């Protein structure tokens, strides 16, 4: 996919669960990540590991197994890697309660409520867990206390050492959507039977929570230009996604590889176009043991589509994790696993694809409403089950005066960077450009799963 020209490349970060690793292995592991082509690390700071009781926090609790974020930041900087920190409150799916302390989740004033005033339960790592209400004053206060304390600790080390601080829900999509969309918590306000009013209410609740978290981080000293919000699930289905993206740079989930090349392309394109302050994409490598398994070759193929669609920043979730995750690129000792080289090859291959900026006034394609209440729309979208891609038949080849010997095998897009061809099937195909406007040789054989970029007559593809 290289054409020999120099272009700004997409930034790629590796999520590192430093809290599950021995400090002694950090230097070696970070050097290995840099060698693999990552230019930043992304550290989740897990609330439940630092709250002792009733809003008192301890960031150096070695006796409880908690490991210092400062040690990890210093080691990453020594390896020449940029550092991003995500504070949650819900930032990791492998921890009980997604990282929110049990004492918070078990507080009756925090729990999201169903129509019968029972708790809204989410299965987290096979444990039924009460989902918190984003409308709960108690949850907002405790979340903000955590964000403020964690931000101050980062500030002690100097915000200058950080690329960004992310607050929010974690970009993975939890299974239950009704914890927000149909929350009967007394502080959530009345629930209308009108679907549009319900959506507006959910967006109001989510926005209030995000605003409070952002304010807590800023008041604790976080520089405004480094603050980001992590959406719930993919950008185009996240609750209040448009509103949040208009105020903050956002982190969002890339849907899983199985949704297909075209769906991934459209998701990334629309997310970038409609996120004026920037959008990062979290891609899963491997899986939690209780989730659908994901092979790295498929995760890397999804990342390839995202890069070709113009993603400017990717974060490979759980790229290095001591335990509780299947398929990390480094083992708990920091030894590079075989799968890691697939990512390195991808980064080399995509080095010359230029990221894309937001387009003014861009609008997302309207998606149908969730059809399986109380399952969250973001979760359905992540699995390709909230189908918004009504125009699957691709006629862009003809529009660009290109021909393909296998019908429906190649997706063609004219972009700011040139012509992009994406293989959308498991069979090889040949694309012909009779007028040689893009492909100098007049034809290009594209392998299954490949992405080729042509920059007009002077360019080429490999």
């Amino acid at each position: 996919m290289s054409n020999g020209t120099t272009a700004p490349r997409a930034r790629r970060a590796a999520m590192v669960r430093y809290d599950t690793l021995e400090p002694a292995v950090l230097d070696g592991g970070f050097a290995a990540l840099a060698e693999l082509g990552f230019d930043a690390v992304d550290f989740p700071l897990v609330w439940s590991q630092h709250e002792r009781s009733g809003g008192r926090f301890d960031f150096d609790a070695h006796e409880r197994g908690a490991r210092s974020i400062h040690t990890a930041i210093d080691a990453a900087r020594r390896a020449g890697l940029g550092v991003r920190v995500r504070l949650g409150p819900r930032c990791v799916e492998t921890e009980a309660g997604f990282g929110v302390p049990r004492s918070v989740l078990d507080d009756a004033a925090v729990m999201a409520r169903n129509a019968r005033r029972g708790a809204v339960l989410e299965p987290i790592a096979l444990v039924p867990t009460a989902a918190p209400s984003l409308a709960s004053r108690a949850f907002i206060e405790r979340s903000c206390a955590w964000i403020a304390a964690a931000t101050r600790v980062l500030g002690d080390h100097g915000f200058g050492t950080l690329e960004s601080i992310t607050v929010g829900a974690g970009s993975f999509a939890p299974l239950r959507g009704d914890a927000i969309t149909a929350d009967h918590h007394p502080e959530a306000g009345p629930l209308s039977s009108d679907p549009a009013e319900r959506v507006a209410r959910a967006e109001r609740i989510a926005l209030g929570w995000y605003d409070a978290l952002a304010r807590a981080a800023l008041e604790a000293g976080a520089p405004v230009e480094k603050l980001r919000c992590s959406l719930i699930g993919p950008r185009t289905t996240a609750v209040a996604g448009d509103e949040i993206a208009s105020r903050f740079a956002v982190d969002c989930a890339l849907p899983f590889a199985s949704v297909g090349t075209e769906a991934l392309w459209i998701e990334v394109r629309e997310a970038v176009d409609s996120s004026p302050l920037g959008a990062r994409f979290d891609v899963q490598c491997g899986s939690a043991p209780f989730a659908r398994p994901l092979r790295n070759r498929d995760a890397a193929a999804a990342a390839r589509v995202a890069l070709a669609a113009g993603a400017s920043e990717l974060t490979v979730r759980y790229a290095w994790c001591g335990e509780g995750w299947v398929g990390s690129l480094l083992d708990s000792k920091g030894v590079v696993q075989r799968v890691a080289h697939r990512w390195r090859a991808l980064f080399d291959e995509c080095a010359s694809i230029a990221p894309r900026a937001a387009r003014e006034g861009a609008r997302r394609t309207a998606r149908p409403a969730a059809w399986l209440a109380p399952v969250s729309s973001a979760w359905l979208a992540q699995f390709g089950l909230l189908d918004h891609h009504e125009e699957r038949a691709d006629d862009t080849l003809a529009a660009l005066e290109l021909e393909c010997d296998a019908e429906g095998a190649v997706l063609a897009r004219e972009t700011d960077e040139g012509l992009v061809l994406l293989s959308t099937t498991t069979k090889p195909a040949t694309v012909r450009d009779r007028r040689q406007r893009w492909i100098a040789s007049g034809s290009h054989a594209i392998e299954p799963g490949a992405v080729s970029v042509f920059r007009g007559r002077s360019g080429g593809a490999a």
Partner: protein
Amino acid sequence: MIRFEGFDAKSWHRLVTIFAPGFASRPPNAHAERERAPGGLLLVVFRGTSVVAAVHSHRGRCEIDGWRGASSMQKLAEQTDAQFVIAVEDGALELLLDRWGARVDLDEPSREGWLLLVDAVREIVDERKIYFWPDLVPGGLPRPTRTVIDGAADLVLPAGRAAYAILVRDDSTLDAAIAIARPVGAPFTVIGGERIVGAIGALEGNPRRDMQAVRAWLDRELAPVHVGLHAKTSTIEALLRAEQAGAWSRAFNEGQLVIDPSPPWVVAGLGADVARSAIVAARGVLGTLMDRVAPALESATRVASARATLSGLLGLDVGSVVGSVLRRSSTPTPSSSEDESD
């Protein structure tokens, strides 16, 4: 709590897809091919006689012109080329989860919470708000209690003991390995092939030597081994789908399936399989005379294995249910030793 360690995505994927081939990871460019593949699950959400939404696991949203009750599910499956159909009344899932949420005591162990979910599902099924096709689990089955679940766990793998399985490809190279331990006073531990190979070195594909090496390591490092298995992955996949009685015991006798050590539940399970196979064979030879005797023999076989096998404890032939599901599921994904870097 369950602790996972030493898996890479490839071997975990291999293990999971033996039992759930439909969960196989797929690259984005396989989507179009998947859309055309037969099989899969059709999920229908209905309100009265109208369909709110219908989604096929391979093809996404699809058009269904109306809901005509449980008797129409087979026809829906044929129309949409699905192997499984689940029909849910609009709002039933909310009702189910609301009931579950209202009953769960969050201080209770999680297995109690899941049993309460099973109760809630049964209620919703009994109230005819959710339908399954085909109906693979016999109706009227008592919900296992916590004691029964604990008893089943103790039977299969007692506290303080370990189990392992080594699966090899047809060319005898290692496909996947797993070890499970229930240490006393420590979390349930699941260990993957990467950690096992890292500890004892590469496995040779020789069942006897490989099993000795893994067993010695587990005995030394984790807990005494209660049961161990060595087989080709293709053999296990075929046995899980086998319809005829006696397939497991035949594979065991022919050495395709090596089980060592063999705890009583394995011996009883294989014995029951032999007995079922003998009844089937005798029925062929003795004809109508055997028809009169067979029910009593089958009953005696069930009674004999009731306390010694998992199916006896749970009152449900787990193997038969798994087999029925797998025979309708996607074909297993083959794996080759050239496919190492995923």
